[in-house]
């Protein structure tokens, strides 16, 4: 990793709110072309950590350095009030100016081109997530923050979208911070995993995290096997700097 590959550096960050620490002591680096995944149980501070990385909180402990301004964000929840009539095509240009062709291409990538002129409120949960993802990638960002981007998407779609996310990180050479629950699918696309439970309980390559004792306690023996199982399909793993290291098994 060279210094100019670094996009975001979160150092010892934490957020104290309403008398408790939402998350504490988080260190993580996001670099170009790499996917960092946050996992952890509900309330473990995944979304908070993502928002800290995005600079959405003013009073945090620690420091966050962001070395890019070309950021796309897919929030966990976007609700559109009935009073606000927004079509997919209006939503695509929400924070950016795009050519028609760019809009079509992005919608095409997430297979929702046919919904271009539909109102956002007409979309199903899965379709809406695809539109959110399309909007985020249309901007060709340096940094893409995805908070559970495939919630409500059907299983085949889920696999497809994770493959797409992986492809985007390679073609655009952008750094991705991904939050997800679907351990087995996520791991196939991840370079680095941060397992949260109010603090960083462990972090490293998928295979390293899977063998971590704390991870096993948090998610159970089964999910550990699941990850290791997945790793058998590969002939190498990456270390935290993205270099290829020998499989440990």
């Amino acid at each position: 990793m060279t210094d100019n590959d670094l996009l975001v550096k979160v150092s010892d960050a934490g957020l104290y709110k309403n008398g408790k620490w939402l998350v504490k002591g988080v260190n993580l680096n996001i670099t170009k072309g790499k996917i960092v995944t946050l996992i952890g149980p509900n309330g473990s501070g995944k979304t908070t950590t993502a928002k800290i990385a995005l600079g959405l909180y003013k009073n945090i402990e620690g420091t966050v350095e962001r070395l890019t301004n070309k950021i796309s964000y897919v929030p966990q929840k976007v609700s559109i009030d009935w009073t606000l009539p927004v079509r997919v095509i209006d939503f695509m240009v929400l924070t950016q100016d795009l050519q028609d062709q760019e809009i079509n291409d992005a919608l095409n990538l997430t297979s929702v081109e046919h919904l271009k002129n539909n109102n956002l409120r007409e979309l199903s949960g899965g379709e809406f997530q695809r539109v959110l993802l399309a909007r985020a990638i249309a901007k060709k960002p340096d940094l893409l923050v995805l908070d559970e981007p495939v919630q409500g998407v059907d299983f085949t779609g889920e696999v497809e979208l994770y493959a797409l996310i992986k492809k985007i990180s390679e073609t655009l050479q952008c750094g991705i911070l991904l939050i997800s629950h679907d351990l087995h699918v996520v791991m196939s696309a991840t370079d680095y995993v941060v397992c949260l439970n109010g603090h960083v309980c462990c972090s490293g390559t998928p295979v390293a995290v899977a063998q971590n004792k704390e991870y096993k306690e948090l998610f159970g023996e089964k999910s550990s096997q699941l990850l290791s199982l997945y790793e058998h399909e590969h002939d190498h793993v990456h270390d935290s700097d993205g270099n290829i290291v020998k499989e440990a098994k």
Partner: protein
Amino acid sequence: MFDDFLFRALIAGIGIAIVTGPLGCFVVWRRLSFFGDTLAHSALLGVILSISFDINISLSIFAVSSLVALILLRLQNTTNLAGDALLGLLSHSSLAIGLVVLGFLTFIRFDIMGVLFGDILSVNVNDLIIIWAGGAIILFVLWLIWKPLFASTVNYELAEAEGMNPKRVNAIFTILLAALIAISIKMVGLLLITGMLIIPCAMARNLSNNPKQMVVLSIIGGLLSVFVGLYASFEINTSSGPTIVTVAIILFILSLSRIRKKY
């Protein structure tokens, strides 16, 4: 032509309707109608200050409304009171203070009905200049901040994460609202200005499926209300503000038959 009070009222009304359309849409989208009310109520204090110190009425209303808006933004950060309670607090305290001060001004003949409900007879050429120049500035600034304002209306955190400055555009929008109230009090009155802001937009929402269309339709709705309302108030001898708002509400009821419930 400008000697005719009906013509002057018409020109004033057209100017105001063009500005209330787009601003009103944001008021509806951002659920700010009670906030508009609060600013309008504080305008009474502005009117009274303008009479007491003999300063320009629009300027004085703008100053007081902006001040109330800034106090609100400050209170939001310092207390845990809910938004509507804060608004009620500010709205009625400024109204009460205004009325108390009015009590001291026994030496001045003062038409409070005109301030509450608008008075077209009093619209002079100076007012027209203020309405059109002020309106042009409001629309120009709104045009400048349209994208970040709209983005932060759809999703605040998304807009902030992607490099827009929602806090700043929200504050600017608040000032624009105060300015609109300042230029339109004479025409519609402070009790009804919120109606003028939101009713044409509510009508437009029933007929539109995208934001720009909604803005255009609310301008058209506002213009229609002004035309028909002014004509009716002249013919049946009713006060202009309430008549214009009544026409707007009739248009809204008519629009319900074409409502796009699906979206």
